[in-house]
């Protein structure tokens, strides 16, 4: 077992097909920054709410993407704000040790939709992988070898190119299942190793 504990982040994002590219960007970006990604889909479900609470407790920080909380089929999507509330409470009871970050597509929208969190400046990703990567680099700073945003984007492209094979390998019908989620993490780490090796 590696000696040093791996810092972890709870990822709260929408799980739907329209968000697939940004979902991949989060996994690749966070993994390349040396973080363990905890998400509700990262473990087989044992009661969704209990799973989410446990994952937030286990995580050093959390990321909440509020870019798609608008109504879908006439129903607003409350899951992301609910999980944000759980993480904010976790941050409160840990005296700020659990750090909460918010991502949004549009500037100033989070301040209007969730004005209770106006003290947290959201990272604006404009709905692009590059925006996600830049936001992650704003939040997380690596002590050692630094992975640049262009490198993270190259890695994302490499993973996207192999998605059909990765899907077949895991037998997953969608990208939002436990098996392929873990395989995506391994794929991003394998690409990271190639990058690091190419620098030496």
């Amino acid at each position, binding site marked *: 077992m*590696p000696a040093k504990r791996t810092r972890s982040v709870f990822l709260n994002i929408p799980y739907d097909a329209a968000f697939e590219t940004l979902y991949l960007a989060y996994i690749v970006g966070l993994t390349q920054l040396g973080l363990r990604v905890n998400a509700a889909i990262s473990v087989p479900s044992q009661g969704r709410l209990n799973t989410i609470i446990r994952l937030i407790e286990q995580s050093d920080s959390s990321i909440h993407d509020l870019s798609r909380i608008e109504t879908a089929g006439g129903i607003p999507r409350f899951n992301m704000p609910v999980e944000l509330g759980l993480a904010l409470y976790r941050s409160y009871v840990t005296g700020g040790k659990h750090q909460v970050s918010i991502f949004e597509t549009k500037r100033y929208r989070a301040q209007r939709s969730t004005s209770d969190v106006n003290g947290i400046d959201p990272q604006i990703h404009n709905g692009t992988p590059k925006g996600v990567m830049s936001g992650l680099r704003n939040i997380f700073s690596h002590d050692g070898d630094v992975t640049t945003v262009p490198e993270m984007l190259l890695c994302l492209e490499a993973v996207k190119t192999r998605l059909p094979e990765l899907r077949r390998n895991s037998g997953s019908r969608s990208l939002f299942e436990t098996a392929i989620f873990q*395989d995506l993490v391994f794929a991003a780490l394998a690409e990271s190793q190639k990058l*690091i090796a190419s620098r030496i």
Partner: protein
Amino acid sequence: MDVKPIIIENPIRTPEEMAEILGVSLDRVEAVRRIMNAPVRRKKSVVAGKTVGTASLKKSSPSEGRAAKKQ
């Protein structure tokens, strides 16, 4: 609230180390490594955000043939 960068002290793990942390079989990692190391078989070219096809495999359609003749 000022957002202070979170300093990550741990090194970037290898896939094998992460598999150990997650309690996943090393066979899974090996399979993913094989996929990521395999040469890319096809390459899609994208023009102005629109996928125009698989460069090496795509056969031109009759309409494309006509368009090519016009040019």
